[in-house]
Structure formats: structure tokens, C-alpha cells
């Protein structure tokens, strides 16, 4: 279970202090939770804060009751938090197999790596020894990013807009990956998304807007209001 208590995050800008997150408190113990809301509302900041990449100005973060607010990225990773970046990072010289092995925390055989890659819909043998660089397409990098999270198999997996930067065709097959993950993975999946199809498979939806939690509820409670605003279409084109 993940708890955020009174999280505030402020940054200094030219115009003075800006509040990115304003007294955010929430509890996540469902299996599949989606965070949605307008761009610039603080969703990614929240995800990075849970992974330890950003430290809150004030407030507390608890994982299974343990205060992890002061822990760094590595320590949180070791406690069972995984984080898939919105923009996958390029590595000169490191291959898909290297990264999957690092994620799994052990040297993986080609067969092990293939099994994980096929989970995310990549024809595995072609990819095992590819370098993680711009010779791979956005969709491929995104899938490898997700495969790393699968290889870790931790109790909390965070995905920051997995749909960002990939084409519609790739996105449709990505939905299947998440549906499968929901059915098969233990632990909690926390996914930031604008996509109706992702929100539809969530047990709980949290709407974050202007640094605050606007509302929290089941898809039946949240989706009708969101769809009424018809933001999903527009946000998809924003992300291309």
C-alpha cells in the first residue's frame, strides 16, 4: 500500500514561488490505478516523487506503512518501486539484454530475455542484442521500457504516460499489454494516462488538476464527467 500525506512541492521561478503540488494526500492499495488530468497538472511530478527522483518540499510518503520520504531512488527501487519513464532514455553501447538483465538483477539468458520481450509484443530474437538508441522506434523503446518493469516484478509499478510518443497502431497493441499485465501481475500498477481505454480497465481513477486531487473514484464515477469534457481526443494529438 502506498500513502501520500500532505505532499507539497514548490519550485522557484522568475515570477516567484510556484506550487506544483498542493497538499496532496491519497492512498493507493488497489491493483490497477490510473491518474489522469490536464497536462501540466502535476501528474508526472507526483510519479517522480514516488520513485524518489523529486523530493517533496513537505509531506510524507509511506510504502506498506514505512516512511520512505527520505530514501533515495536506489533504496526505493530496492524496496519494490519501479518507474517507467515517459521518454525512454538512450544508452550508447548498452543492449536490450543488458538492460533487462540489470532490471532483473541477474544475468539473463537469451531465452529469459525473449520471454519477457514477447510479453510486450516484441519479436524477441531480433531485439536481444540491439543497442538502446535511436535506431529503435519510439514504440519499440516504449515496449522495452515496459519490459524492464516486468523483469523487475516489484510490488509497485509506475508508468508515466505509456501512450505518449507512439503511433495509434502501436498504442492499440500496448493496451493489450496492459490488460494482460493487469490480469497477471501481482502488486499495484499505477499508470498515468489520458487514454480512455486505459482508464476503462482501472480499478480506481484519480484526477489531478492544477496540483490538486480534483476527484477520486471508480471508472463509473469518474469517466462520464471526463468524457463530457471530451479531452481525450485533444490530448492524444497533443502527445504525438
Amino acid at each position, binding site marked *: 500500500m502506498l500513502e501520500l500525506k500532505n505532499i507539497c512541492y514548490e519550485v522557484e521561478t522568475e515570477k516567484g514561488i510556484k506550487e506544483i503540488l498542493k497538499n496532496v494526500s491519497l492512498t493507493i492499495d488497489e491493483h490497477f490505478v490510473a491518474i489522469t488530468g490536464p497536462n501540466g497538472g502535476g501528474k508526472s511530478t507526483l510519479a517522480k516523487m514516488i*520513485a524518489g*527522483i523529486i523530493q517533496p518540499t513537505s509531506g510524507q510518503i509511506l510504502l506498506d506503512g514505512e516512511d520512505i520520504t527520505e530514501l533515495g531512488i*536506489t533504496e526505493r527501487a530496492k524496496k519494490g518501486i519501479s518507474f517507467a*519513464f515517459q521518454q525512454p*532514455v538512450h544508452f*550508447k*553501447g548498452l543492449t536490450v539484454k543488458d*538492460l533487462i538483465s540489470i532490471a532483473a538483477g541477474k544475468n539473463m539468458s537469451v531465452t529469459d530475455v525473449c520471454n519477457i520481450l514477447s510479453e510486450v509484443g516484441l519479436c524477441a530474437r531480433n531485439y536481444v542484442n540491439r543497442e538502446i538508441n535511436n535506431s529503435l522506434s519510439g514504440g519499440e523503446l516504449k515496449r522495452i521500457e515496459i519490459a524492464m518493469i516486468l523483469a523487475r516484478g516489484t510490488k509497485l509499478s509506475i508508468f508515466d504516460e505509456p501512450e505518449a510518443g507512439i503511433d495509434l497502431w502501436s498504442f492499440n497493441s500496448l493496451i493489450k499489454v496492459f490488460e494482460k499485465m493487469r490480469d497477471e501481475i501481482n502488486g499495484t500498477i499505477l499508470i498515468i494516462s489520458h487514454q480512455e481505454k486505459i482508464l476503462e480497465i482501472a480499478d480506481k481513477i484519480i484526477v489531478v488538476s492544477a496540483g490538486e486531487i480534483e476527484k477520486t473514484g471508480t471508472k463509473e464515477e469518474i469517466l462520464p464527467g471526463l468524457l463530457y469534457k471530451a479531452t481525450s481526443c485533444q490530448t492524444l494529438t497533443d502527445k504525438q
Partner: protein
Amino acid sequence: MDLIQKNLLAQIADLHEVPEGAYNIRANGESAGSNTTANIDIVKKDDKDGIDIIIKPGTKNESVHIPVLLSQSGIQEMVYNDFYIGEGANVTIVAGCGIHNGGANDSKHDGIHTFYIGKNAKVKYIERHYGSGDGNGERIMNPETVIHLEEGAVLEMETTQIKGIDSTNRITRGDLAAGAVLEVKEKLMTHGKQYARTDFSVDLNGDGCSANIISRSVAKDESRQEFFSNINGNCVCSGHSECDAIIMDKAVVAASPQLTAANIDASLIHEAAIGKIAGEQLIKLMTLGLTEEEAEEQIINGFLK
């Protein structure tokens, strides 16, 4: 051979015993073993230090190992090795130098390797440099490689210096006839107060020839590196050089690429990038459970692989 020499041999040539095929092992200025084959002859020079390696035309899938080991502190030498590779041969040559200096005097190995590569011959040349020992004496290496490629000849050169050389000036010169191909991959890592200078100069003289020079380096601590490359395109040809360096701590890296096109159909490209390890690379690996130091090590290992 003693244990120190055996360790040097393992580092520079992946050899644990005497190699198969042709070889010449030079240890502390003297021959420590030599073998020739029906197709590969090794002849000691009369007028100066060094050997001639003569490979018959058409020799296929054979290899030559010529490691140099320095384990006595204070040894200084200058060696000339010439390689004559016959038409249509296809061979692998493994050279390299390991210095162990546990004493107070400087140890130094300078060597000039000259390659005469015949028509349509193909050579893979692997060169590794390594230093060890905790003496105050410096470990110095100045390798020079001169490459003459005849029509259709191919040389793939891999040169690596990862550890322990205090000062090095690495010079490579090449000239290419029509259709010849030169591929160079350099890997370099310096630390402490080390200094490494790399200097490539290649003349593309025959139509359809090409050169591709790729240097990847890591400079740590207070070490200094300088990279010079000069590609002269004198015909219908293509040339590409790439210098990619990771800089850490208080190191200094300078890259000075030069291209000269003297023919309207010469196509020459240079790429150079120097920078620290990207913060997001470290963060990504840390989210996978590595410490910052472990992440750094993985990134450098991958970069130099």
C-alpha cells in the same frame, strides 16, 4: 615466463599459454619464443630491433600473435615491426604491449608497425595496451601504425587502452588505393593524471576507397586526452570520423577533427561529442536498483564495449 608476464599476456592477448599458429613473444627486450607456419614467416631484423612478418598470398584463416611484455622497471625500447601481407590473404593479427612497472624508473615501449597489405587481402588487426604495477616509475607507450592498402585491400583495426598507461602518443597513418577499406575502432580510458594523445591521418587516394574512424573514450580524474584526425579525400571516396568522449571529474578532453576534400566527389563527414554522463541515464539505472556508482560503471562499460 613468470607470473607477472603471464598476467600481462592474458590482459593484452587473452592468452594463457603459447598461442596456436605463428607467434613471436618479446619480453624485456628479448625474444621469449617464436613460431612460424608454412604460410607465415617471422624474420628478425638485422639492422634494428624488430621483426618482419611475411604472409604468403592467399593465406586464409590464420593468425599471428606478437605480444610485447615489459616487466623490469626502467626498460626503454624502440621496436620496428613490418607486416607484408600477400595478395588475397585473410588473416588476424594480434599485437599489444603490457608493461608492469613496480620500480622507480620509467618503462617505455615505442613501436612502429608498418603494414603493406596486398591487393584484395583482408586483415583484422587487434592491438591492446595495458599497464600495471605500483612503482613510481611511469609506464609510457608510443605506438605508431602505418598502413598502406593496395587496391581492394581491407584493414579492420581495433585498438584498446583501458588501464594503467601514464603517457601515450598514438599515431596512425594510412593511404588507400582504389576500392580499399580502412575501419578503425579505438577505445580509450584514462584516469589519475594520465595523458593520451591520438592522432589519425588518412589519405584517400584511389577511387571508391573508404575510411571509417571511430573513437570512444572515457577520461576520469585529472587525466587529459587529445584527439586529432585528418582525412584527406583526393578522389571519389568516402571518409567518416567520429570522436565520442565521456568526461568525468576534472578531466580535460580536446577534439580537433579535420577534413580536406580535394576532389568534388569526395564525401567526408566528421562527428564529435564530448560530455558528461547524462543525468537521466544514471536515474534510469538507479530506478532499476543500481547505486549511482554501479550505474556509472554500467554506462562506461557499455560505452567502451
